[in-house]
C-alpha cells in the first residue's frame, strides 16, 4: 500500500477482525440485530453507517478544538443527527420500500454506540485523515458482521439471497428441496440474530485465544 503508511493501514484493518466493533468492542449491537433478516437490508444499513461514520468522524475531527468539552455530547449528537437525516431522506427518495423495512432503525443510527464511541475515543483526539480512516475501518468492521449475519439468516431462513432463490424452489421442490431440505423458519424471528452473533463470537475467539475473556 503506497497510499497508506503501515500505521494508517492498521486503522482500517484492525477493526475488521481483532478489534471488531461488534464482537470485541461491543458497540452498535442494536441495529445490527434488528434488521439482518434480509441480506439487502443489511447491506444498505452497512453503507448508511459507512457514510455517517466517514463524514461524521471528519467533521468532529475538524471541530475538535472548537467544541467545549462540557457540551460535546450534544454537539456530536447534532452532527450525527444531521447526517442521518440526509441518509434517511435519500433512502425515502430512492429506496422507499427498503426505508419502510428499516423504519426507525435508520433513525437509530444516531444513537448507534459505534459512532459516538469512535467520536469520543478517536476523532476528538486525532487529525482529519486518520479520523476518516478510523471511521471507515470501524464502519467496515460493523458492515462485515451485519452482512455475515444477514447472509446466514436469509439463506437458512428463507432460502434466498437478495431475494433470489438460490437453493431452488421450495414449492416446486427443485434444487436442494428435492432432497427433503426445509427452510428453518426459526432464523427469521429476531432472537435468531443474537444466537448467530453469539456463534460468530465463539468462532472468532476460538481462532484467536488472546481475545478470550477472563471468567
Amino acid at each position: 500500500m503506497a497510499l497508506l503508511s503501515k500505521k494508517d493501514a492498521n486503522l482500517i484493518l484492525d477493526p475488521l477482525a481483532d478489534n471488531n466493533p461488534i464482537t470485541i468492542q461491543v458497540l452498535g449491537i442494536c441495529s445490527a440485530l434488528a434488521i439482518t433478516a434480509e441480506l439487502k437490508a443489511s447491506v444498505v444499513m452497512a453503507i448508511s453507517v459507512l457514510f455517517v461514520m466517514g463524514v461524521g468522524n471528519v467533521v468532529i475531527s475538524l471541530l475538535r478544538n472548537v467544541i467545549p468539552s462540557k457540551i460535546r455530547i450534544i454537539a456530536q449528537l447534532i452532527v450525527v443527527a444531521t447526517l442521518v437525516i440526509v441518509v434517511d431522506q435519500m433512502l425515502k427518495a430512492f429506496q422507499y420500500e427498503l426505508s419502510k423495512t428499516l423504519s426507525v432503525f435508520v433513525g437509530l443510527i444516531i444513537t448507534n454506540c459505534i459512532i459516538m464511541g469512535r467520536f469520543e475515543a478517536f476523532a476528538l483526539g486525532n487529525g482529519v485523515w486518520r479520523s476518516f480512516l478510523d471511521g471507515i475501518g470501524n464502519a467496515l468492521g460493523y458492515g462485515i458482521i451485519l452482512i455475515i449475519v444477514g447472509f446466514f439468516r436469509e439463506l437458512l431462513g428463507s432460502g434466498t439471497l437478495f431475494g433470489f432463490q438460490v437453493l431452488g424452489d421450495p414449492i416446486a421442490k427443485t434444487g436442494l428441496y428435492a432432497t427433503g431440505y426445509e427452510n428453518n423458519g426459526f432464523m427469521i424471528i429476531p432472537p435468531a440474530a443474537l444466537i448467530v452473533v453469539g456463534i460468530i463470537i465463539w468462532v472468532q475467539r476460538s481462532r484467536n485465544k488472546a481475545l478470550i475473556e477472563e471468567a
Partner: protein
Amino acid sequence: MLEHIELFFKSIFIDNMVFAVFLGMCSYLAVSKKVATAVGLGAAVIFVLAVTVPLNWLLDQYLLRDGALAWLGPEYADYNLSFLSFILFIATIATMVQLVEIVVEKFSPALYNSLGIFLPLIAVNCAILGGSLFMQARDIPTLGLALNYGISSGIGWFLAILAIAAIREKIRYSNVPAPLRGLGITFIITGLMGIGFQSFGGMLTGDNDPPEGTETTTAEKTEEKELIEKEMEEDGKSVSYNDIIKE
C-alpha cells in the same frame, strides 16, 4: 382504560425493548454484570423514558407532523416538518437528560449517587431514542398513552436487564467453553430469552380472532401477522403465525 392496560402489557412483554427490537443492547450488555448496577440503570431508563416520550409526543403533535403547525394560523397548515424529527428528538433527549441530572443532584443526592454515572450514558442509549421514534411511527393517539408507553417500555427494559444480570451472576459458577465466556454466552442467553418472550405474542389476542373493541390497536399486530404469513407462504409452508411464535 382498556387500551391503557393493553398498551401497558404489550410494551412490557410483546414489544419488549430488548427482546423484540434489540434497543439499548449496548448498555444492556455492558452494565449487566451485577444486579445492583443493573437495577440503577434500569430505574434511570424508566425515568428518562417517562419524561422524554410524552415531551416528544407534544413536539410531534404540535410542531413536526404534517399540518401540525395549523394552530399558528391557516397559512401554516401546509408545512410538514417531520424530516426534522431525528434532530429535534435527540436534542430534547440530550437536554432532558442533562436537566434531570441537575435536578436529581440538587434534590436527591442519594438517588444521584446511585444513578449518577448512568445518567449521561442514557442520552446515547438507543432505547430512549427508540421509544420516541416508535411512539411516532405507531401514531400513539393521546398524551396519556404516550406517557403510558414511555413508562411501560422502560419497565420492559428494566425487567430484561434485571433478568440477564441475575443470570450472569449465576453463570459465573458454570463451566462455559472458554471462547464463549462473557460476551458470547450472554448473546446466546439473550437469544433464548427472546424466544421465550415471543410466546407472549398470543397473550393479548388469545386465539386467532381478537376481542371486539381492540381492533384499532391490534391492527398493527395483524399487519405483522399477515406479513409473516405471507413470507411463510412464499417459503411454501403452511405454518400459521401462532405456530411460529410458539416455537
